[in-house]
């Protein structure tokens, strides 16, 4: 193998034979807390200091031991750590199902507007701007998903699923059908779907797919019953395939009195082309950190607004935002309100302490306002084009077609997880691996619309180079990353989850 690979070279800061040391290895200072401490005495004692407490001693802790470092030291620490992280701005990040698209910088500036920093307990009159943003975002999302009403409260996709499941439960209960105790989830669905249904107290009925990778209508028929509360689907599904029979599926679910839930993780494929509401879905979540480009932040925060059809509106979480004066216009006007909060009639209550991840919602609002119809429709088009082009350029087999914004290739005889590790050596982020299980050694790949043809060619080059390599090379990978292959077994067998635990295990 030649060594002219494009590489993303990460800064590898090493000190005392280890990567950037922990803050606790740079300093630990113990502060003694006491009523009537002699602060001067302790200050001279090196690594300890004392703080005089205004509370009786029995209401305070004795001491606190943490690193005490200067700002320049911290700036270097966090800069070095950042240099050991691969993000979208480092290179392509085709992590299937996660829609790792470019996060426009200006949305950070928008979220930092001082006028956005308001407390949730402010009077409605004094935060009309915030309420207007929320109102307009509810409206945008309703139009994009073809839904009649939207709540912005859920702080992530899984939380949105939970709202959907709780709304379904409340709806069935309201109709005297509280006996419905099953939620149907396709075998190939995301783990959160199963976990959410279980959290909601439902029995999970798992649904196999047909030979073409879509919902098996016979299996669905068999799974549906008067006990069905809901079917959770994503469309395109996790293989990237559009559920062509979606209208039939909706009818079947509705015929037994169940609800159809749309997992919005894959909405980026359909923006401006098709809407869940038009397909017969009753309730859906939007994954704004995927579809609407808010930063994933190393794991979060995201936001998972939920849209519903009219019949389900009364059950949405409280409060939502509406134009003021729905009840009494003159009252609202005289109170200086154009927008107001209200509780839906049969609300399921709260799923977050306040109104969710406001700063994330604000960034999503700015993104949608920037792109508009033209940009959103183009985003899905280019996402689908990119996935199809990339798939055409890689040597791994892609068993299920026609896919949209993502495809699932099979690593065949290779171990998909090892393939991923080896791809790191080519300076790219690998796809999601080993899921969905319907494809053996799955490489679930979603390039998104933000990659250029040149980048896709480079990405394909990485796939193809790894496809040619032997198992031993793969098992030893990665070799060019900030850290080498990390031992998962030791981490799990002997959990050390804090610097305190590290000290204990090193026998100090």
């Amino acid at each position: 193998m030649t060594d002219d690979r494009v590489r993303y070279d990460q800064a590898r800061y090493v000190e005392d034979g280890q990567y950037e040391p922990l803050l606790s290895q740079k300093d630990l200072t113990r502060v003694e807390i006491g009523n009537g401490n002699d602060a001067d005495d302790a200050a001279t004692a090196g690594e300890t200091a004392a703080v005089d407490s205004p509370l009786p001693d029995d209401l305070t802790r004795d001491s606190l031991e943490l690193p005490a470092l200067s700002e320049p030291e911290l700036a270097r620490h966090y800069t070095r750590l950042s240099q050991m992280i691969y993000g979208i701005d480092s290179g392509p990040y085709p992590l299937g199902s996660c829609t790792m698209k470019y996060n426009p910088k200006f949305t950070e500036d928008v979220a930092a507007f001082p006028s956005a920093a308001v407390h949730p307990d402010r009077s409605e009159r004094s935060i009309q701007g915030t309420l207007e943003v929320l109102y307009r975002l509810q409206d945008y999302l309703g139009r994009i998903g073809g839904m009649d009403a939207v709540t912005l409260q859920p702080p992530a996709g899984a939380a949105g699923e939970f709202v959907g499941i709780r709304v379904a439960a409340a709806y069935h209960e309201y109709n005297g059908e509280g006996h419905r105790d099953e939620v149907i989830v396709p075998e190939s669905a995301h783990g959160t779907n199963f976990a959410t249904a279980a959290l909601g107290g439902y029995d999970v009925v798992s649904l196999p797919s047909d030979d073409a990778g879509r919902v098996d209508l016979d299996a669905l028929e068999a799974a549906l019953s008067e006990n069905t509360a809901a079917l959770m689907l994503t469309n395109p599904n996790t293989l990237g395939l559009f559920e062509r029979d979606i209208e039939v599926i909706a009818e079947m679910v509705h015929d037994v009195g169940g609800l159809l839930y749309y997992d919005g993780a894959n909405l980026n494929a359909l923006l401006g082309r098709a809407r869940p509401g038009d397909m017969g879905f009753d309730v859906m979540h939007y994954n704004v950190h995927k579809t609407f480009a808010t930063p994933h932040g190393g794991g979060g925060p995201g936001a998972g607004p939920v849209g519903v059809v009219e019949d389900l509106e009364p059950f949405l979480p409280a409060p939502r935002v509406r134009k003021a004066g729905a009840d009494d216009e003159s009252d609202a006007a005289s109170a200086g309100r154009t927008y107001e909060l209200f509780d839906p009639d049969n609300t399921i209550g709260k799923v977050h302490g306040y109104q969710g991840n406001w700063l994330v919602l604000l960034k999503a609002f700015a993104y949608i306002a920037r792109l508009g119809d033209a940009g959103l429709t183009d985003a899905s088009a280019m996402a689908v084009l990119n996935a199809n082009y990339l798939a055409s350029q890689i040597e791994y087999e892609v068993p299920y077609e026609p896919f949209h914004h993502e495809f699932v290739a099979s690593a065949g005889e290779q171990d998909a997880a090892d393939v991923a590790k080896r791809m790191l050596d080519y300076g790219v982020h690998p796809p999601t691996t080993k899921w969905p299980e319907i494809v053996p050694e799955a490489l679930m790949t979603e390039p998104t619309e933000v990659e250029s043809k040149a980048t896709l060619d480079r990405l394909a080059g990485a796939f193809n180079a790894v496809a040619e390599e032997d198992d031993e090379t793969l098992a030893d990978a990665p070799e060019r990353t900030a850290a080498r292959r990390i031992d998962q077994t030791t981490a799990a067998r002997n959990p050390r989850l804090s610097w305190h635990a590290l000290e204990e295990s090193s026998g100090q």
Partner: protein
Amino acid sequence: MDDSRPTGSPYAPHTDEERAAMLEVIGTDTVTELFDVPSAVRFDDEFGIDARSERETRRFVRSILERNDDLVELLGRGHYGYYVPSLVDHLADRSEYLTSYTQYQPEVSQGFLQALFEYQSLLVELTGLEVANCSMYDAATALGEAATLADRVRETSGTRVLVPDLLREGRRGTLENYVAGTDLSIETYPTADATVDLAALEDAVDEDVVMLYAENPTVRGTIEERLADVATLATDAEALFVLGSDPIALSLLERPADVGADVVVGDASVLGLPTSYGMGLGLFATREDYLRQVPGRLVGASEDATDRRAFTLTLQTREQHIRRERATSNICTNQAWVALRTAMHAAVLGPDGLVELATRGVTRARDLAAELDELEGVTAPVHDRHHLREFVVDVDQAATDVAGALEQRGYAVHVVGEHELQICVAGVPEETLGQFSEEFAEVVR
């Protein structure tokens, strides 16, 4: 960056020639052909959303947000507006932190993993409990997760979860939804003078209780004085004692492990986030006994192939992507970047800075309450307790009138009763508190 409105996505780099070349390779004439969407469900309409240039978008959003009044917020009750040092914004905004995702490939995510490990360590130090996860969504959902943990680990057949009558509706309501799928039921126990009414609680506790929840400080800013006794009541009933708090309070108040807490939840974003309309960071820490029942992500230390210490997400068999319907929680995307900010803010303050910040919350609240108490027709604090950063004030007038008049003068305070206001000093500069106190005097005169 040009100032024109996009005709396609401004973040898709394709030229017309590239599109054509790619389509040719794929073997189709148009992108539309790539969509396998039956005509019956095709969307041929428009959303009716205008595209804007970046500059126009900024102006558009700013013009809406400017309809927010610029008030000095003396608001708390679970969400606080502490000053966040510039280092936090500048370093957390580095795009490697912002634009990466969950560390499924730890070999290229060491930096974030280490920062999260340091965040977990901060919470371990603050709580005295051995295990902290690297985030739940917020305090309310963390409380909900504590209840489902109690449901999983309980040794009794009981079903009762006891929470204080003062608990905020957002937390209580979220908790109700989290336990809806279990046979747990939420009940309140009374407080006396805004702290746990120990005698009443003792009456309420029986062997059917599986979880007992208290907060320190309480939503009214009062500091609990009998937490160890509350813990004993819980332990005797074989119930979990869950304590709600936050990293600033924990820097000064009794260490949860020392009073017998089994789980600590709360909002950790009191460090790291400014006022954010309720967006938070769910703190979740517990004893090692429950390690395998913990919800959410955990970062652990390990070694890489060169034997250097390295970090990785660990014990993932608890999680939804592996355990599906038997997972300890459905959480996937979390608040990792907020946890990074919290860790950074704590690091900037250091241990003395943290303790001093908490201490100021006691003294400033005490001083302001004493000043207001001098005023005729005003009693502050209402509760004969120690307070952290906020306290309740009784006024002769209707509380809404006083709050309304204060708002006209540029100050926001809570109305918590017919004649009760709540005032929080967190993040408010001392001079501003002085001015507020003068204006308050004029309003109630």
